């Protein structure tokens, strides 16, 4: 019996020693607790979105009591003429604002990244990225006052102008980031190989920057599609955008239709943004977004 105890003792000691020896080697990248914390933050960010999408499929009219899976609210939303019109306005404004802002952004990104240093470059960057830091409510009411002061009331056109303004920096940053990572070396090589400026732009610069342009255009469209406050202040009776219409529905209460249309908007925005990230690499877009403000601040 005593022999057995001794043996078990020995095994015990051995395993303890083994445990000590197997201690995790030092690695500063390993921070206990940070992983679970980040997981909780991710749950915080995504649970509400998942809840919305699930409830959008709830058959019960009493939104938060689950009584089976159903598509009927999506059908009801699709049959709503007002929602269809609002969606049409949103897409129309989004497409037009995307085209205008992306075209302007391509030129601006080329100017900033390939134009070299010039006096006032910092102020110009600050001005162009201004829509990123001015609070939406300020942009919204100043735009409203501006259109009223000049007496310009053209419905959709007002929206297109307002959206183009705040889409420009969102379209520009991925393009600028792309041009920055590419560097000017390729264009220099093309110049050495007898290219004229215009042909270099068409053959080298444009194809190489096209992922940035695609990402910029998508992000501009998503930004336009998502905008509520500015459209809310600027839009008139005939030119209600989808978010503005949905906001009106929300004010009247939580209904399954609101859930359904919100879920649709959510999925569209998320899918488009994902495509933009995949095209442009997320780190580039993120760094660009982060770089935006310090530049703005530096001009003050």
């Amino acid at each position, binding site marked *: 019996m005593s022999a057995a105890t001794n043996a078990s003792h020995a095994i015990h000691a051995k395993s303890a020693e083994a445990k000590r020896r197997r201690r995790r080697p030092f690695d500063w990248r390993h921070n206990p607790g940070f992983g679970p914390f980040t997981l909780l933050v991710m749950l915080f960010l995504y649970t509400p979105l998942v809840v919305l999408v699930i409830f959008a499929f709830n058959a019960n009219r009493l939104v938060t009591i689950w009584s089976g899976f159903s598509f009927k609210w999506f059908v009801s939303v699709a049959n709503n003429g007002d929602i269809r019109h609002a969606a049409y306005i949103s897409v129309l404004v989004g497409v037009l604002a995307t085209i205008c802002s992306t075209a302007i952004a391509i030129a601006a990104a080329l100017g900033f990244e390939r134009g070299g240093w010039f006096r006032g470059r910092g102020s110009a960057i600050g001005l162009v990225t201004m829509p990123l830091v001015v609070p939406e409510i300020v942009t919204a009411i100043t735009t409203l006052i501006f259109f009223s002061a000049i007496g310009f009331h053209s419905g959709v056109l007002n929206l297109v102008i307002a959206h183009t303004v705040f889409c420009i920096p969102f379209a520009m940053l991925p393009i600028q980031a792309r041009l920055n990572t590419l560097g000017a070396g*390729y264009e220099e*090589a*093309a*110049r*050495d*190989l*007898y290219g004229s400026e215009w042909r270099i732009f068409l053959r080298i610069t444009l194809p190489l920057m096209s992922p940035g342009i695609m990402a910029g255009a998508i992000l501009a469209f998503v930004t336009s599609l998502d905008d509520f406050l500015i459209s809310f202040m600027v839009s008139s009776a005939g030119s209600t955008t989808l978010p503005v219409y949905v906001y009106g529905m929300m004010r009247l209460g939580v209904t399954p239709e609101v859930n359904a249309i919100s879920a649709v908007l959510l999925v569209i925005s998320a899918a488009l943004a994902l495509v933009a990230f995949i095209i442009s690499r997320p780190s580039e877009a993120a760094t660009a977004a982060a770089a935006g403000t310090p530049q703005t601040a530096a001009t003050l």
Partner: protein
Amino acid sequence: MVSSPSGATAPTAAIVMPSAFPVTAPGTQGDRLIEIAGVEKVFGDPNTGHRALEAINISIMEKEFFTLLGPSGCGKTTLLRMIAGFENPTTGEIRLHGKDVAALPPRERPVNMVFQNYALFPHLTVYQNVAFGLEMLNWKKADITARVDEMLSLVKLSQFRGRKPTQLSGGQQQRVALARALAPRPQVLLLDEPLSALDLKLRKEMQFELKRLQRETGITFVLVTHDQEEALAMSDRLAVMNTGRVQQVGTPEEVYDQPRNRFVADFIGEANLIHGATLGRNADVMVAVRPERIELTMPGFQPRIRGVVEAATFLGSDTLLEIRAGEDRLRARIRGAVRLEPGTNVGLSWPDDAERLLAD
């Protein structure tokens, strides 16, 4: 007159004439091709700005392999980019066949460049990369195909014509860059540290390869490097540069055996710089002697200098002695194994032709 290989009589003419550019006379070795005269470059404000280049005067001959050698920041790359047309001299002229080209943009200069990291267009195939310059010069399609094929077989990359640059190894990318720059038949090929991205073994191979290409094409090569061994091995002539000035121009032998100043003596190979006073001569001069030319003085002979051994390191074929003589420290490479304890007194000698008197 603009000669172009797309012309009716093109094929034969194109071999002699650089494409698309008027040439005063077909060059032969010995003619001056590039003349850099009184070039100065100031970045920023002309009075207070950074002086990158000062009083540069260099002539580069037809069919020559010329190297700009110097430590980083010496201005060699700026000078190369000036020949290419990416930088403009603040003052001075850059003449090609006697004509000042300093104000011409890159696309009007019959000069092509192999860029430091090759700058191969990542969205184009190997074929399209090599064809790029020819397309820009509006060559005919058939001529482009022929020329690109010729170039790809010259650099032995014919089977890779359809690949993208990212699918190639570093050495292959480098050969594409060479083919691309040579395709438009430039009068001068500029190479900006072309071997620095390659590992040692590949670098040795490419040195040989570059010499072969230069011989076969008969084009003037201007190479920029900070590697003195590379410069000595490859160049017909070289210019040693430091702090924006040319220190010496000459053949590798001249620069190695007859350095004009302390910088050159020290930068090219290894040199002992001994104060004139230590040798009992004029205190203003320095005497430069290569370590391999120093010998231990035979007993009974008068040494040039006496010193104390501080360390002796056996290196296989040689022994490296570190010797203190007065306030100078000397390094001597003695053939074979020499057993000398630290603290031993020795006498050192060298032949008359091994020393150079340097004023600065």
